[in-house]
């Protein structure tokens, strides 16, 4: 068993921890987050409230836990959209390189790249109102060209290899070859990119929630917690520091995981016989 890179282990542990917290929060949190209890507002950490309470009396720890749920759900589904639509497009473009289809897909990609997630979010929420779903769509749509580009970029050099010609001599069509031969060999690239986009999704969700375009009250979200804490940052800094720290640690963990995976999966680092 090869020794795994340190970054991979640390990153995996952190990511798994957050995932676990989010899953637990689906069924249990120390305190409910929907009620408002003004008498308990702004309490310092204590036995009852491990991290204290916020300006509406809600338990910070519980808020952070459900915030994890929100962030992970949004980022995860957004990655799913990106992979589900982007990878087939990228594979199709590579399989038909130089054709009109390829040109159209590449142009389409460039077009979406001109619309940052924030702008897409603005366009959607302007008519449909802010919500977690709209945040998912905004982030997810931007993920599509990212994955399409990575898939196409990884697939193109493979199409020139002889084993693809051998598969064609064996009578296989382009679509089948894309699935049987190309896809498994770009899997590494896609996995690494998925962790990167996941961490970017967490940051994007936080930013959208911060400006009010993400998950709406009463659903807690780290970004909105920061927005609400902003006015009290001089008197109660912890309200602003804790959610921010949560974001930093989670994203850090995911990035380490991504880096570690990239190193572990790099074929150049694997030993091969002449």
């Amino acid at each position, binding site marked *: 068993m090869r020794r795994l890179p340190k970054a991979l282990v640390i990153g995996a542990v952190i990511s798994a921890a957050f995932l676990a917290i989010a899953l637990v929060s689906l069924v249990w949190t120390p305190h409910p987050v929907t009620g408002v209890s003004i008498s308990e507002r702004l309490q310092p950490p204590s036995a009852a409230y491990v991290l204290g309470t916020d300006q509406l009396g809600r338990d910070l720890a519980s808020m952070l836990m459900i915030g994890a749920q929100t962030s992970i759900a949004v980022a995860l589904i957004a990655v799913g959209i990106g992979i589900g639509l982007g990878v087939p497009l990228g594979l199709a473009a590579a399989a038909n390189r130089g054709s009109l289809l390829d040109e159209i897909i590449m*142009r389409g990609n*460039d*077009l979406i*790249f*001109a*619309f*940052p*997630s*924030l*702008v897409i979010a*603005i*366009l*959607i*929420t*302007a*008519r*449909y109102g*802010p919500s977690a779903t709209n945040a998912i769509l905004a982030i997810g749509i931007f993920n599509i060209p990212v994955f399409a580009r990575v898939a196409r970029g990884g697939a193109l050099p493979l199409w020139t290899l002889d084993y693809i010609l051998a598969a064609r001599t064996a009578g296989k069509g382009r679509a089948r070859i894309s699935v049987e031969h190309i896809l498994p060999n770009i899997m590494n690239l896609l996995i690494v990119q998925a962790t990167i986009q996941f*961490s970017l999704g967490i*940051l994007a969700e*936080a*930013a959208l929630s*911060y*400006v*009010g*375009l993400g998950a709406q009250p009463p659903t807690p979200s780290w*970004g909105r917690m*920061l*927005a609400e804490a*902003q006015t009290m*940052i*001089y008197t109660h*800094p912890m309200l*602003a*520091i804790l*959610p*921010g720290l949560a*974001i*930093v*640690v989670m*994203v*850090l963990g995911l*990035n*380490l995981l991504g*880096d570690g995976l990239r190193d572990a999966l790099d074929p150049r680092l694997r030993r091969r016989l002449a």
Partner: protein
Amino acid sequence: MLRYIAIRALSLSLSLVVASVVIFALIEVIPGDPASFMLGLNATDETLAALRTELGLDGSKLERYFAWIGGMLTGDFGTSYTYRVPVAELVLDRIWVSLPLAIYALTLSTLIAFPVGILAAANRGGALDYGVMGGTQLGIAIPNFWFAMLLVLLFAVTLQWFSAGGFPGWENPGAAIKSLTLPAIALALPQASILARVMRSALLETLGQDYIRTARAKGLTRRQAVLRHALKNALIPVLTIIGLQFSFLLAGAIIIENVFFLPGLGRLIFQGITQRDLVVVESVTMLLVFAVIVVTFLVDIAYAIVDPRLRRR
């Protein structure tokens, strides 16, 4: 080269047209009647009709689209429904905050990232390299608006070196730039981290190429080989990232205005959303997308300057 620029300009125009159609469709067409949206459920038929006339919603979709485009090309961005003032005026005031902020941040980010990335690549595996990799890992993970809050806490409140927010206007350029500095730093940090990593990996990739070996065989020292051969080639992937970064920086600038109470495009847009002022939202969005597409075009030109292989076509 000229032909390359012409083709890129054509591509740019095409992208702008398609983008404008998308924006128009998403705001005015697909979700239904703009007027009833803006006035809400309780609007009477008369007020709806009045609004429709005012907004020019009487014409067919095609007519309205061309009216909108034509207006923008002549500088008429429509009239804001909530402020009753031409959108162009509103935008002009505010864009002189958002755009300089984005450019300031881009400049800072590049100035920091290049030397850091180059040093890390030159020092590969060494203490400096690990330090840079660790530092940038952290930098990437920090949300820029949160970092901004911390900066305010430290530099404005505690140390009192900067004001905590606000923008004094461009009459006093020094003061204006000073008020944009903390926001620019907050924006620049995560982007500089990304850019430094890209610079480093692009350089390392280039250093493994055959022409570096040829250069060394001619008698160049390691350092000379890096500076004269590797750097220019490494620029190509770096340029791509810089182009993408601008769009993120512009979006980030809009978000970060919230922390510093800057009178930029951010407040305009978000208020426009809350107040259902579709005229403002439509035109400002188009402007943002326009800025991004133009920057992409400039990056394409820069590519051709750096990489002669692109100039043929």
